[in-house]
């Protein structure tokens, strides 16, 4: 039915063939994987890069003088170069962490604990993932900084009037905000937010866990101070994520974890720290996973974010329209600029039941508060179901979702 909607120059069937898992059956049905915002599937290129490292050029990095260690260190540092180029920043500004969550905690516990004083304020928005809320609550409770929540509008956008109010007393030192909401799909206007914060003497941290998957991110243009994302949502491995920090900020930050590789020299009396990014990478890093992330970046860049964004735009439009056309199904998130996650409710059917009944048809969606409990309550809900899209998602899969939802409604009207 929707073959005609296919984006030009984007061969989704060829892309699907790169992802082994997409040919799996679930409950005897073809897998329709609409949960990429939680974690994306992995293309063969990523799997192969990891396997090749473990089979032919593996050893611990940095400390070795032998061939395997040198090659493996090259591969690991190459991955850092790829991330730096991907975000348009310098390699010294790229710290490898486990995931976006660790990246934000790192900033809270180093920058936060040294640069924020009691009385200073941190602002986050009403549509943050717990990863960009709980670390600031913990910092608040440890450090006596104030945590302020900027409102969102009913469409799901930052409420600029409220933002002005939150900053009015001049005590805000950090604005920590998502680049794309994992529930509402909203892209925030990050250049404008960065300028807003900087004009008021505050730093800005962006949670790019969702955004970085769907559009090209130029941190130099945005002028972000900190940026985080996770490899596993970008078609890369689990266990690897990225923290970007402006060089001058990283230079001034104390270490996060202590151990090997992050030191310059150690005596019992005192130790001195390595330069960034190494200062923040204590112990043996996720070497193979960093290499896999490099391969994932190569993979999406070969496809190109222009066509990825066009494909996902078209999927999202199709999904919003298809779901809206079903009576009793309500989609959430109506920002001007929104990406490929569509949360929805079904009248009279709990989101858990929706997810289970869809799963029985081979359709994977998520249900719950999506790690954004306060947002769910802000929307007046307890839980929602969510379909989310990736480069391998097809229009036909969205049609399956719509058909699946009609069957769910049937079960509940028997």
């Amino acid at each position, binding site marked *: 039915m929707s073959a005609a909607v296919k984006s030009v120059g984007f061969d989704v069937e060829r892309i699907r063939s790169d992802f082994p898992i997409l040919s799996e059956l679930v409950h005897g049905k073809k897998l329709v994987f609409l949960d990429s915002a939680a974690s994306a599937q992995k293309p063969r290129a990523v799997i192969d890069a990891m396997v090749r490292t473990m089979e032919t050029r593996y050893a611990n990095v940095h400390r070795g003088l032998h061939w395997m260690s040198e090659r493996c260190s090259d591969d690991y540092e190459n991955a850092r170069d790829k991330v730096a180029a991907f975000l348009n920043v310098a390699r010294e500004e790229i710290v490898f962490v486990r995931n976006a969550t660790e990246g934000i905690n790192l900033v809270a516990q180093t920058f936060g604990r040294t640069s924020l004083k009691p009385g200073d304020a941190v602002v986050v928005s009403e549509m943050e993932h717990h990863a960009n809320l709980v670390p600031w609550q913990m910092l608040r409770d440890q450090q006596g900084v104030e945590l302020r929540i900027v409102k969102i509008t009913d469409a799901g956008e930052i409420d600029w009037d409220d933002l002005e109010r939150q900053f009015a007393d001049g005590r805000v030192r950090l604005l920590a905000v998502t680049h794309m909401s994992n529930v509402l799909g909203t892209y925030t206007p990050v250049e404008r937010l960065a300028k807003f914060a900087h004009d008021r003497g505050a730093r800005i941290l962006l949670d790019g866990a969702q955004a970085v998957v769907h559009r090209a991110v130029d941190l130099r243009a945005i002028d972000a101070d900190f940026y985080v994302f996770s490899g596993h949502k970008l078609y890369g491995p689990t266990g690897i994520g990225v923290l970007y920090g402006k060089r001058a900020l990283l230079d001034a930050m104390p270490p996060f974890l202590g151990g090997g590789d992050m030191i310059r020299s150690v005596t019992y009396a005192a130790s001195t720290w390595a330069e960034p990014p190494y200062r923040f990478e204590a112990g043996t890093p996720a070497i193979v996973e960093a290499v896999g992330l490099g391969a994932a970046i190569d993979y999406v860049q070969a496809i190109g974010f222009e066509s990825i964004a066009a494909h996902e735009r078209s999927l999202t439009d199709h999904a919003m329209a298809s779901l809206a056309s079903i009576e009793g199904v309500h989609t959430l998130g109506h920002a001007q600029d929104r990406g490929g996650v569509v949360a929805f409710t079904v009248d009279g059917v709990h989101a858990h039941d929706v997810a289970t009944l869809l799963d029985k048809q081979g359709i994977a969606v998520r249900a719950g508060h999506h790690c954004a409990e306060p947002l769910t309550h802000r929307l007046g809900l307890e*839980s929602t179901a969510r379909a989310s899209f990736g480069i391998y998602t097809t229009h036909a899969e969205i049609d399956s979702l719509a058909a699946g939802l009609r069957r769910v409604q049937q079960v509940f009207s028997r």
Partner: protein
Amino acid sequence: MSETDDLYQALIMERARSPHHTGALDPFDAEAEGDNPMCGDRVRIRVAYDHELISRFQHETRGCAICVSSADLMGDAVIGKSGPEIAELAEAFDAMVIDGRIPDRSEFADLRALAGIHAYRSRHRCAILPWQALRAALGKAMEYQNG
């Protein structure tokens, strides 16, 4: 939709739509709440005793079909039972949810409708939540009687 008959059986759908024991019993002898913050499910149980046997039972459940029907079928099963009997039933129910094997006892004539949940690990909590709340209520009642 045959593929879900194992779970969303007629009895479950019926009780989810129109539960028999819903309400905020008053007066009552013991009450407790259970919640699952992951999905917002919440159950409140109230019971009244007559000579150490549960004489009346009501629940207020906000949750999925599994949770609501589980609370309601639990009501059928526990009225007229003593604390120790209920503890035993709760254990048998837990076991059924975990491994799908239906206990060979009369109280499970209806409760067995929930056996299909065992295949859905992430939904176990939905079925068990009302039983946890009931146990909590009974625990409080015990304290009250002893203290």
